């Protein structure tokens, strides 16, 4: 029997009058479990095709450089190499995956043109009979660079004298005329003025890898109808289809995506990195083409979780009420946008954390640097903010010599509270999970804190 955590049904009992279900709330075995543990699950790479060709990439050797020339003649001489693909072969080379939801501008080339903005940026794709020949061909591409100064720090990138690395003219994403996604609620300076204590600290994080068992990849098979069938491990079949069709400048109905079995996603398979080039290679060679990341590419070239830097300044009363919170948040988007403008807005929506604070001010910056472009990852916009916010809460509780859970309970948001983004809170349960976690580890709470409820006034 699988492990099941107990469900404590004493909480919110009156909100579940209809608890009589036949299969909801029951442990049903996961439908793909047997296939996974017996090795019979079919992943995209388990399909074999006659005449399968392979794509490998020649990548930038520099963080930031102008490309003077690209010489592919040696690559074409490698036995088995079928074709070399440059930006000229990409019908609509500049893209931005979020254009599907109306976010602009297209800021990334599928293959680099006259410059590279990060180490590992794709410049040339080589299609060959074998992986070995494709790798050899990619290794023999010669690129002549003029190295440019690189910006590798979010705050340095925003400095007035920083070299502007983006064609759009700013090293940050522009949110409707603003240099950051803003949050303004109450009067934060007045809040600081009335506070007994001020606490201000800085937090940061390293970029990290999604580390899926199965690396990102696809096999594209030209169909007799002229369409392209894409076997992919994408997390979003239509999102991949639509973005690929836009890059190929082909009708959307020319493409079919089949997937649904993914050896680990965690946000790492929503960037549409392999399908466009595999489709172009399949079209140019009229052969089935596989493009799958090596582990090295997955770890060093595919989008990591963004490195973030977060400053939090809090104004707190001696009794433990937080009366003002100011957050300056910097997401290192790396060289290109990918999903980071969205993730930064999501970070802003999460502030100031699950607490009711009357005065909140935040600037959430989506910053471009010459690091590997970051993008979506599990907890997008929230995970690192939670590290910062909850470290902050612990430090303040200690400074005030308050119990860390009581301090959180005192500030916890409840039903009916107006959040900083001006949505009225409903269905809240922060108080209850704190109470229940305290009980789980035998952390005693005074009666007044045990009596608190997300549904009404307590302590």
């Amino acid at each position: 029997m699988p492990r099941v955590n107990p469900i404590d049904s004493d909480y919110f009992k009156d909100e579940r009058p209809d608890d009589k279900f036949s299969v909801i709330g029951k442990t049903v075995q996961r439908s793909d479990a047997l296939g996974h543990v017996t090795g019979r699950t079919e992943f995209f790479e388990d399909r074999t095709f006659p005449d399968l060709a392979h794509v490998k990439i020649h990548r930038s050797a520099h963080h930031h450089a102008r490309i003077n020339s690209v010489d592919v003649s040696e690559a074409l001489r490698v036995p088995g190499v079928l074709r070399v693909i440059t930006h000229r072969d990409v019908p609509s080379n500049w893209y931005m995956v979020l254009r599907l939801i109306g976010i602009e501008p297209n800021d990334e080339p599928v293959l680099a043109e006259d410059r590279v903005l990060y180490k590992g940026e794709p410049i040339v794709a080589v299609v060959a009979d074998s992986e070995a020949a494709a790798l050899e061909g990619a290794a023999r591409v010669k690129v002549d660079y003029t190295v440019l100064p690189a910006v590798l720090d979010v705050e340095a990138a925003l400095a007035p004298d920083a070299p502007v690395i983006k064609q759009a003219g700013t090293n940050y994403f522009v949110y409707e005329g603003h240099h950051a996604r803003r949050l303004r609620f109450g009067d934060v300076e007045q809040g600081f003025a009335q506070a007994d204590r001020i606490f201000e600290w800085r937090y940061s994080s390293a970029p990290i890898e999604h580390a899926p068992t199965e690396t990102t990849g696809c096999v594209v098979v030209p169909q007799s109808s002229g369409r392209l069938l894409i076997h992919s491990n994408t997390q979003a079949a239509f999102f991949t289809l639509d973005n690929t069709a836009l890059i190929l400048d082909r009708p959307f109905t020319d493409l079919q995506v089949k997937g649904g079995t993914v050896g680990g996603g965690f946000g790492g398979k929503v960037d549409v990195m392999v399908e466009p080039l595999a489709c172009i290679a399949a079209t140019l060679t009229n052969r089935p083409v596989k493009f799958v990341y090596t582990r090295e590419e997955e770890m060093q070239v595919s989008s990591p979780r963004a490195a973030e830097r977060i400053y939090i300044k809090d104004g707190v009363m001696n009794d433990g009420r937080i009366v003002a919170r100011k957050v300056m948040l910097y997401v290192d988007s790396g060289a290109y946008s990918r999903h980071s403008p969205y993730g930064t807005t999501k970070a802003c929506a999460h502030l100031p954390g699950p607490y009711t604070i009357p005065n909140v001010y935040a600037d959430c910056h989506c910053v471009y640097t010459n690091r590997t472009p970051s993008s979506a990852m599990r907890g997008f916009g929230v995970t690192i903010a939670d590290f910062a916010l909850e470290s902050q809460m612990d430090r303040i509780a200690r400074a005030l010599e308050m119990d860390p859970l009581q301090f959180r309970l005192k500030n916890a948001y409840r039903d009916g509270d107006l959040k900083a983004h001006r949505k009225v809170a409903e269905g809240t349960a922060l108080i209850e999970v704190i109470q229940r976690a305290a009980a789980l580890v035998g952390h005693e709470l005074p009666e007044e804190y045990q009596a608190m409820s997300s549904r009404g006034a307590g302590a």
Partner: protein
Amino acid sequence: MTLLRGRGYASVNYPTGMNLGGDPSQALIHATTMGGFVISLSSVDLGQGLKTVVAQCAAETLGMPMENVIVDTADTDTGPHCMGTFASRGTHRIGNAVIMAAREAREVMLAVAADELEVDAGDLETDGTGFVRLKGSPATEIHIQDITLAAHFKQGKTISGRGIFLKERNYPVPETGEMDPDSCQAHACTVAEVEVDDETGIVTVLSLHNAYEIGRALNPAMAAQQVEGGGWMGVSHAVFESTEPYYPASRDHGPVDFCEYLMPGPAEIPVQSSVILERPASNGPFGAKGIGEMTANAPIPAIANAIFDACGVRLTTMPFTPESILRGLDALRA
């Protein structure tokens, strides 16, 4: 050498669905001649159990056994649009779409059954065994296989349904950040217990204790697997992972395989104990909220806070490496 123990806390919430909405998912459902119900989707199951959970939603709504439900998904030629599997949206969005489709199919199913039984469709009920019965008169019943055969070959009806879930797109006010970002919020509080070796700087996460409020645990074992799998990932983020371990000095020498990119192995997995609370969300499928992403979040600050509790070192940069612990201890002794 001393092994120092500490305990840390963190409490968090997490939004369900794509930020600001505008992320539809559709479902189509149709009955086969012999009582099967095929759910057509284009959604991707990342291994978290989406196919299983949406089959449960369909079976519950139809009032039919799980065995009768077939999920056909992730083919853009045969399945209707889905925005994708991310943003803790799968169970909520696709579950809701499937329920809507199954409700429509159920209505036809009951109408066909009513014709066969010569009763009013409003007087019929299901109990999940495969029969449709007259309320209060259980002997008047018909099996789903006979209903679907009659629909196809006698009444000439398609037992089918269409479903979609869309939270309308919201646009933030640029000046103030006023917005409606989420469908609902799930909640968690994690207590971490760690051991810090003051000679090597190595942090061992001994245990994670969690309380999660997730609206409704549609499949309790899979909810437990999300909590424990995410807990593992949180430990990994907290004390192991970086693609640029020498940054800012250098971005070189980044790891290129799992020998260099370290993550917790079996010996580093903490003991976990968890409790689930259910406060159903008014817009969730049977009240369910998204639990997918958030389970990696609370463990990280809980571990940071436990490290401080253990040895007095406040770490403000992830990951919490042995080097940073030792430098922190040196600073305390200075």
